[in-house]
């Protein structure tokens, strides 16, 4: 496998991860918190109406999870394609 096609496949996989995670990002915030919030409000969880919960609590929790999932997936991908940053700190 040439270096060039390796880089290309690494980049395609990265884009796939980014696209999937951004879909989730959009769904929990703009989707559940704004666009379909009225429909979700028909359900309640504890004292929360569901759409309201997504807008003021849930979306933020999911954002955190998205970033850690991305960091995990990319660390694995970096190692698989042998492009990770092995030298931890720069030498002085």
């Amino acid at each position, binding site marked *: 496998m040439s270096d060039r096609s390796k*880089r290309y496949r*690494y*980049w395609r996989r*990265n884009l796939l991860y*980014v696209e999937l*995670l*951004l879909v989730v*990002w959009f769904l929990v*915030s*703009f989707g559940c*918190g*704004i*666009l379909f919030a009225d429909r979700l*409000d028909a359900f309640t*969880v*504890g*004292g*929360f*109406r569901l759409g*309201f*919960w997504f*807008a*003021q*609590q849930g*979306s*933020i*929790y999911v*954002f*955190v999870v*998205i*970033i*850690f999932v*991305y*960091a995990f997936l*990319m*660390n694995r991908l*970096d190692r698989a394609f042998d*492009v*990770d*940053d*092995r*030298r*931890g*700190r*720069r030498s002085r």
Partner: protein
Amino acid sequence: MTVEAWTFVMVGLSFTLYIGVAIWSRARSTGDFYIAGAKVPAVLNGMATAADWMSAASFISMAGLIAFMGRDGSVYLMGWTGGYVLLALLLAPYLRKFGKYTVPDFIGDRYYSQTARFVAVVCAIFVSFTYVAGQMRGVGIVFSRFLSVEIEVGVAIGMGIVFFYAVLGGMKGITYTQVAQYCVLIFAYMVPAIFISMLMTGHVVPQIGFGSQLADGSGFLLEKLDGLSRDLGFAAYTEGRKARLDVFCITAALMVGTAGLPHVIVRFYTVPKVSSARISAGWALVFIAILYTTAPAVAAFARTNLLTTICDTPYADVPSWFERWEATGLIAFDDRNGDGIIQYTGDDAANELTIDRDIMVLANPEIARLPNWVVGLVAAGGLAAALSTAAGLLLVISTSIAHDLLKKGLRPDISERKELIVARCAAGAAVVVAGYFGINPPGFVAQVVAFAFGLAAASFFPAILMGIFSQRMNRAGAISGMLVGIVFTAAYIVYFKFVNPDANTPEHWWFGISPEGIGALGMLLNFAVAWPVALVTAPPPAAIRRLVDDIRVPRGAAEAHEIDA
């Protein structure tokens, strides 16, 4: 001990801590000064980013803002957190690999253009000054309200502290002081929130108390709050009033603006590796989310408390905190019908009470009758939030002047020693200017916050994004996109905020999008102009395409700085 004595103790202790940290971590090279030598561990960088990001407004004003806006306050909660997802997935890792010092550095190099660099520098300085004036004002307000010193004295003390660690320590000093400031501010925010949650709902965790039954058996907190609001003629708390498209656009503009703010982006240059840039954005959001998921709970608690203790109460029987804050002008009672009873209602003609939103956080401990030391802690927390953000912004200003304008522009042959001196002088001068605006706030400060996000959304974010994800994007495309985005967004905001403020109502807005949300449209325009222009002009040189190839791969980021440092 009295409230004032406790406040002196808390503020004094926290300031001693910051100065100690600043002396321990002072900068020795331009690399230290601009990006802390790129050696900050990811978790600590996350903490510093959180403190950098959460300003006096987040700490003091946000919960109050939500308490009055109810559901519509969600735009701030989602907007100011969702941007970190964009940062972590789309910008931070690549900018870290690029590995220079500033955002204008990236724009200037990637688009092989001094003009693009210059436009970026001007935007960065404008955005940062807008922001920093508000922070200095916040410092003055906290001092004057809690310690009854003049606002000018308060601002001067704040300037002195920031001067000390920003000028001496640069990014390195700021980073480690911000870590300390984060600890102070989150402790100061959570203690009253936990107390109040336990008092009202019996739950230790405010995020759970928020959705629980009230301890006095009167049903769910939010249901009671909806009922109270309706009875008094306000809209129900959990129902929105803003148009859906406007909510959508404001949220989008705030998210994209957050991801494009230079003082946030530059934090990701300070970590050792690309992988640490990704994870550090995650940690930053964890630390931010602790406050941002607590704020709406605090808002609902405070609003319920306020409505139940104040409404239809005879003025003679108001609690002591009411009189104390009346003296500061934050709360005012005007007995229009002369019956001596406080009528607080959504009907403007009959309403007798005006409340500043800041009181929701500042007076909350007193409203909930918490011990005096908690009140002192809130003052120290508000100062930590304001100082940490001010320092981060001042650094962007000084770096823009010393590095982007001087080293990369007017005087490329300047030695590192001289550049460091200039950077320190620029930081010093910026502190003085910021202090001046803190003491004499231009009336437009509150208005121009929309500017900061709108401009970042319409200029930086698209330019950086296309610079990373497209190899075809060239100088002509990026510059024309930035200019159109900036001019459109600025014109819309200036028209509705300054030229014709009377027309600033939904009927006159384009598609019902408010000036706060117009940055989202500005961003789309930027993309829409940049693409066709790039396609009909010459592609970027081969060296630039290699640069883009290179920043997409993590390996080698650790060495990137050695050329410059």
